[in-house]
């Protein structure tokens, strides 16, 4: 059990060390990174099965008893996030084998991807606030490297904005750690859950909660803190964009869910209202920003922002159904969003650009790609019977039960506007006649075709499967939400017998 909890961190980091130290040939490197991702997926699935069957699992690193050492905890939410991280890691690593050029490869591209995966998994599994900060930094440094690797002008420009705002997020998070420690003398999340209600000045606790909300809000790209995302996500190679789009903002969302269900539950009326307002503005500005864009990845980047609003809205409503909706939404969204970015990569490869004015005619040129685009695009917009429909349905139902008609209106209105952007991409990229003159690009070779399309087909299959059989995932999300709403199991697993 102990090994299983730490494996999702150790496997990618060990793979990264091998990749960065050995600097193997192309063939060996591809084999190693694929092997690392498959091993990570295997470990994550074992953890998932263990947690789904036996409840929250915890271990103490170095055998220092909680709350003095660093705890690693896997509850249903954490285990599911680790699993979907492994899926995205595998898909992106395979896609990158076809996309990433030799220069970037020699500078250690595959190694940085593995470090990023290790950091993300660490963030999902740790039970200690300061340790979470460290995993954030592991993730952040790896993302800096991936974002700038290759050093094109556009990448440097995007990276300046990405680095500037993410460093502020880091500093707020660290300040928050310090203030929490000053209030309670502990940084263990389960211990904080027990000790924060005893703090005399609850106003201070709410102030610290807002410090964390802003720090995580920057990471999650919440309104009005999201400007780094559309400024940078379209600049690196598509494999990097897809990895970031799938995972990084969702670590911010995960942290918000974890902190506002486990730690900061004292002033739920205030924090809930704050998160609800931020979520609504995030949804609306994201989707309107997307409508104004003319580049495929920039449209998708704004849609990440808009979709983050849905997940945080689930957290803000905070009933068990809404939390289940937020968990379901997050898991479905990671798969869909990464897949849309991968599709944009093939579009770029086939037409030489992601600019809508320079693309066209791909429906005739690549009908399979057109069909594959429709799966994640309609899922994102919430068409039945795809996964996004169910995710939105649960949130709308939760908002109706909470008697918040304005939330229902925002949820549905933003969904409709999402359709607008998706049809715009469809019309411009796939349907309209190709612009003249068209640069002649080399056709896809067999191996390249398999590496580019394999991950897209796999992720689309997951989306369709969730859409056709939503019950198992919803039951799981529901159980995860119950654990979040009532963290007694979590606290008991970390602190032992104490309540």
């Amino acid at each position, binding site marked *: 059990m102990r090994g299983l909890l730490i494996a999702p961190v150790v496997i990618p980091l060990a793979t990264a060390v091998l990749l960065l130290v050995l600097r193997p040939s192309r063939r060996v490197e591809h084999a190693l990174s694929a092997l690392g991702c498959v091993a990570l997926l295997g470990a994550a699935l074992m953890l998932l099965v263990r947690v789904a069957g036996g409840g929250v699992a915890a271990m103490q690193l170095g055998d220092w008893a909680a709350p003095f050492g660093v705890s690693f905890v896997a509850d249903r939410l954490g285990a599911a996030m680790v699993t979907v991280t492994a899926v995205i890691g595998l898909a992106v690593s395979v896609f990158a084998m076809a996309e990433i050029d030799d220069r970037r490869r020699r500078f250690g591209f595959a190694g940085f991807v593995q470090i990023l995966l290790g950091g993300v998994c660490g963030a999902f599994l740790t039970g200690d606030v*300061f340790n979470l900060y*460290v995993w954030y*930094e592991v993730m*952040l*440094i790896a993302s*800096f490297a991936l974002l*700038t690797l290759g*050093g094109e*002008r*556009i990448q*440097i*420009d*995007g*990276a*300046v*904005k990405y*680095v*500037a705002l993410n*460093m*502020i997020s*880091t*500093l707020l998070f*660290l*300040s928050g*750690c*310090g*203030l929490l*420690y*000053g209030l309670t003398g502990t940084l263990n999340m389960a211990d904080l859950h027990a000790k924060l209600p005893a703090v005399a000045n609850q106003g201070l606790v709410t102030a610290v909660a807002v410090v964390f909300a802003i720090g995580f809000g920057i990471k999650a790209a919440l309104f009005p803190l999201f400007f780094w995302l*559309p*400024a*940078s996500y*379209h*600049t690196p190679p598509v494999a990097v964009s897809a990895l970031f789009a799938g995972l990084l903002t969702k670590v911010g969302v995960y942290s918000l869910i974890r902190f506002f269900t486990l730690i900061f539950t004292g002033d739920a009326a205030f924090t809930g209202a704050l998160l609800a307002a931020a979520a609504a503005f995030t949804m609306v500005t994201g989707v309107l920003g997307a409508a104004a864009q*003319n580049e495929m990845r920039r449209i998708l980047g704004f849609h990440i922002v808009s979709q983050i609003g849905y997940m945080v809205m689930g957290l803000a409503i905070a009933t068990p159904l809404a939390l289940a909706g937020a968990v379901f939404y997050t898991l479905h969204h990671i798969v869909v969003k990464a897949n849309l970015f991968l599709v944009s990569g093939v579009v770029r490869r086939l037409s030489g650009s992601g*600019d809508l*004015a*320079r693309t066209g005619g791909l429906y005739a040129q690549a009908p399979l790609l057109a069909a594959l685009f429709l799966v994640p695009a309609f899922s994102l917009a919430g068409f039945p019977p795809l996964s996004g429909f169910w995710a939105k349905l649960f949130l709308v139902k939760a908002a109706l039960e909470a008697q918040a008609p304005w939330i229902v209106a925002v949820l549905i209105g933003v969904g409709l506007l999402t359709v607008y952007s998706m049809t715009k991409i469809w019309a411009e990229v796939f349907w309209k006649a190709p612009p003249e003159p068209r640069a002649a690009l080399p056709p896809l070779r067999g191996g390249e075709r398999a590496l580019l399309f394999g991950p897209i087909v796999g992720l689309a299959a997951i989306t369709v499967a969730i859409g056709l059989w939503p019950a198992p995932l919803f039951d799981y999300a529901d159980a995860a939400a119950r654990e979040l709403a009532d963290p007694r199991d979590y606290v008991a697993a970390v602190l032992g017998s104490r309540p």
Partner: protein
Amino acid sequence: MEVLLAILIGVMFGASVYLMLSRNWVRYLFGFIVISNAVNLLLFAVGRVELGRPALVPPGLAAPDGPVANSLPQALILTAIVIGFGLLAFALVLASRAWAELGTVDVDAMRVAEPREDAAREGRDA
């Protein structure tokens, strides 16, 4: 002692927020240096300051004799310093690359990734 530190931290936060609001990326980095040290001091101060009581176990005893200084903030600060240094080193190299590639350190003038509407249209027509 904590009060003095709190005032110092407040002044440092204020100065660095002023610097970080600048469009000039180099000024932003100066602000980052100041604010990351301010946060380190914050971590130090919240652990409560004890004067002249090192966290040492005297010879022959199994535990410290009487109250000693809190050593956890030191471990936290050490980690934070190392991470902050790494971030700063990366950001400095990025600043130098931005100056070399884009010819400016004014972040508002960096419009390669997000071209203005009219410039984007011209680029498309060209």
